């Protein structure tokens, strides 16, 4: 009888151990219902200074200083030259159309843009009292957020300001650059050209 009682005690103890182990096993399968995470994403964008000329030529076409005038004024921003008899339009249609060099900031930093010519007015046009000027205006509103040379200024062989801060957003990053020439009546006849250099500096 005492032995039987011992067996029952052993049975109860074993069952208790099994139940506790079973509870532990079952709870290990219960899915987690909460959690949190924290991370860090880090990357680098390199800045690129870059300008381009979608239209790189202003062509005044062919013509001569009208007889009786001492000089002609050819303005690429105007379709009404003075003292100039045009015999053939330029490649973009001047003087029937206005004509500009179009300058775009296609980088991703603001640019301070300067302009210079490789020839003086005397070297380019020749004759008595020739002159050359330049100016610029926004092709896209808000392109130049700095000092814009909007009035005609002498075009020289030294760098001068065009726009001190040209933006790079696609919708506001383009300038029209216009030129004006004074062609004396005694300028020698020839096909003439002047190379214009635009230099961009990171702002």
């Amino acid at each position, binding site marked *: 009888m005492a032995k039987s009682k011992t067996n029952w005690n052993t049975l109860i103890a074993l069952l208790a151990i099994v139940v506790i182990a079973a509870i532990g096993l079952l709870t290990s399968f219960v899915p987690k219902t909460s959690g949190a995470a924290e*991370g860090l994403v880090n990357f680098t964008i390199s800045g690129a200074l870059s300008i381009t000329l979608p239209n790189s030529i202003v062509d005044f076409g062919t013509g001569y200083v009208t007889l009786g005038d001492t000089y002609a004024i050819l303005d690429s921003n105007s379709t009404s030259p003075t003292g100039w008899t045009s015999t053939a339009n330029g490649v973009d249609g001047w003087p029937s159309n206005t004509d500009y060099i179009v300058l775009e900031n296609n980088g991703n930093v603001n640019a301070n843009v300067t302009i210079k010519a490789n020839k003086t007015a005397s070297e380019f046009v020749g004759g008595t009292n020739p002159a050359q000027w330049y100016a610029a205006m926004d092709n896209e509103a808000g392109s130049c957020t700095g000092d814009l040379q909007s009035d005609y200024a002498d075009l020289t062989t030294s760098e001068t300001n065009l726009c001190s801060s040209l933006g790079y957003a696609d919708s506001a990053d383009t300038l029209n650059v216009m030129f004006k020439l004074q062609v004396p009546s005694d300028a020698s006849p020839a096909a003439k050209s002047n190379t214009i250099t635009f230099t961009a500096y990171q702002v």
Partner: protein
Amino acid sequence: MAKEKLNEIQLAAILALFLIALFLVATMSLPAPVPEKPTSYKAGKISVNIVNTEAQKQTTKGLIKVNIIPREVKNG
């Protein structure tokens, strides 16, 4: 003695049956694991460092052209 051995056999049988029943219950009735669904969040952080590694100066060239012809030719 026969009674006591019978109790030990009964004890082993009961224990074995219990373990088998427990195993069956545990393997057949456990819920399938479900994907973790966070119920709380902490803010992460995204940082960006924009540097300038390209050239700090760039030039490009345009052209002004004009063709001046003799007046005498046009005015004969």
